[in-house]
């Protein structure tokens, strides 16, 4: 294992290099049973209680494909804009204790879904090469040596997970930074959850990510030799592993070395990747068609039914919020509103048909104050929220007052009008506000003449005076238009 200086500059920002990343995401499907047998598919059961002759690979047992798993796979493929096509299963042969049959049933040259794409919130598009069905393996626990495989005395195997349905989603090598990789997984997770196919829980292993990482001189169109990185169990480790691995490869090449194509293991504690095999031997999986399973050819009706039953996906929801509010679909505020599932509150504001900028005010409040308290957000009454936003957008409440009222509603519920009047946030009458402005102008004749002469930056000075004189109750937008009109 080569060592890398940890103080090396961040590879994502080094302009001399480009990182090329493709991700393989394994997603466990939320079916009631396994892919090829009727054993329960559930996390956290007692060891080896959800097993049968099929998933234990006992002689003479035969697999039968789960219809719901196929349906979920088609939902995922459709949501990723893939072509849903006739497919078949293959055996991937290798020996490992977590796989009692000594082969994994997977899909090889004809996957159920091919050639799609995923749009990132910032507008980037990542190609999807394929999204195929396969079965999961059992779970090993290593005993002794601190639980690490290489130092363990022996291992224990629980086959509850063996045969659980997975969809493996393979991206094109279109990702260019650790940050973009995290954004891709985040968006993919949101899509998977939206389709109903997955619970998206990375910490329970429902979503597992492997990264193919290579580097090349900036401007080059050839791909460098890639390494496959495994064992990242959070978005944070994914980002760290990619940055470490890219820096390792850059250092290796800079020093005149070459990158060996290999699988490397991310060590979370040590913050580095290490080679997984002492002896490099290209794996020969001897794929061949699974003779116990007939081809899968979803009918046109089935494919169409899947497409029409999909809910609105995050990208479409962002477009809708952007359209309603006039904010860019790629903005953080819009992305936050959709990620936290707050778009129904924007819809409520749109339905209330208040002032024209009410929807954009709503998105700001949702992305800031409401997003900060997801628990209270879940029980926020859409009608009250819409009225509050209407009051702010209409000038009856200042931004600061609206924030205070919103916080009160989220903390203890109630009607925005009642809370505003309880807090003394009565709308200041325009003629009262004009009177205040006049008083301030008379008190500061020098500043006023400079402002009249065109010194615009004095707006801030006068607004500050208005704010102080009115104890924060004045609508400052109205005050500045009074100032401009008076000039």
């Amino acid at each position, binding site marked *: 294992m080569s060592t890398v200086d940890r103080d090396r500059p961040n590879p994502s920002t080094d302009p001399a290099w480009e990182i090329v990343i493709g991700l393989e995401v394994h997603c466990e499907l939320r*079916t009631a049973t396994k892919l090829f047998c009727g054993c329960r598919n559930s996390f956290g059961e007692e060891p080896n209680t959800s097993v049968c002759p099929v998933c234990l690979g006992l002689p003479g047992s035969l697999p039968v494909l789960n219809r719901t798993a196929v349906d979920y796979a088609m939902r995922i493929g459709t949501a990723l804009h893939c072509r849903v096509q006739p497919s078949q299963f293959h055996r991937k042969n290798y020996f490992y*204790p977590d796989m009692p049959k000594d082969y994994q049933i997977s899909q090889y040259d004809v996957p159920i879904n091919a050639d799609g794409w995923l749009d990132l919130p910032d507008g980037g598009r990542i190609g999807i090469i394929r999204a195929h069905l396969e079965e999961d393996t059992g779970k090993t626990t290593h005993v002794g040596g601190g639980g690490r495989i290489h130092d363990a005395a022996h291992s224990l195997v629980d086959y509850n997970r063996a045969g659980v349905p997975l969809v493996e989603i393979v991206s094109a090598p279109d990702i260019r930074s650790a940050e973009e990789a995290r954004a891709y997984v985040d968006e993919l997770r949101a899509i998977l959850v939206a389709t109903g196919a997955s619970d998206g829980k990375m910490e329970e292993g429902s979503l597992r990510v492997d990264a193919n990482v290579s580097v090349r001189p900036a401007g080059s169109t050839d791909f460098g030799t890639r390494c496959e990185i495994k064992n990242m169990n959070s978005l944070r480790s994914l980002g760290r592993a990619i940055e470490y691995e890219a820096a390792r490869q850059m250092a290796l090449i800079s020093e005149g070395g070459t990158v060996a194509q290999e699988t490397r293991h991310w060590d979370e504690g040590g913050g580095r990747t290490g080679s997984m095999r002492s002896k490099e031997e290209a794996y020969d999986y001897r794929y061949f068609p699974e003779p116990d399973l007939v081809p899968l050819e979803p009918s046109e009706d089935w494919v169409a039914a899947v497409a029409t039953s999909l809910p609105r996906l995050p990208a479409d929801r962002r477009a809708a919020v952007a359209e309603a509010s006039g904010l860019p679909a790629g903005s953080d505020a819009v992305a936050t509103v959709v990620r936290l599932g707050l778009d129904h509150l924007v819809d409520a504001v749109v339905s209330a048909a208040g002032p024209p900028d009410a929807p954009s005010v709503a998105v700001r409040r949702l992305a800031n104050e409401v997003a900060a308290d997801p628990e209270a957000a879940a029980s926020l009454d859409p009608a009250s929220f819409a009225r509050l936003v209407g009051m702010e957008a209409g000038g009856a409440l200042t931004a600061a007052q609206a924030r205070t009222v919103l916080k009160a509603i989220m903390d203890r519920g109630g009607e925005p009008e009642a809370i505003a009047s309880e807090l003394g946030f009565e709308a200041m009458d325009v003629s009262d506000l004009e009177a205040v402005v006049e008083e301030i102008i008379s008190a500061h004749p020098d500043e006023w003449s400079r402002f009249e002469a065109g010194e615009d930056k004095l707006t801030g000075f006068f607004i500050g005076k208005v704010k102080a004189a009115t104890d924060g109750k004045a609508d400052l937008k109205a005050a500045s238009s009074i100032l401009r009109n008076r000039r």
Partner: protein
Amino acid sequence: MTAMSRRITTEGRISAKEVAHVARLARLRLTDEELERFAEQLGAVLEHARDVEQLDTAGVPPTAHPLPLVNVLRDDAVVPCLDRDEVLAQAPEVEDDRFRVPRILGEAP
């Protein structure tokens, strides 16, 4: 297998070295005599594949399965699993209700 079949159809025979490679992948220990014998037998099978390859199959779709069936599916309904004691009774060694296996020499591929 796919890589191998490509090799076969171009050369038309299989060497003892290739048999040894496949045997190793299948964790089979074969004697030199067996390697030679299986190379010859497998060669005959491949010879036959070569004969078939002479046929004009343009316009014939690839056969994915000998049975004229597609979409054999079951409903996603839970059925009773095996009793754990019975399952583990078959295991050479058991610890903490799990199958105990010897030290594993590398990460899963």
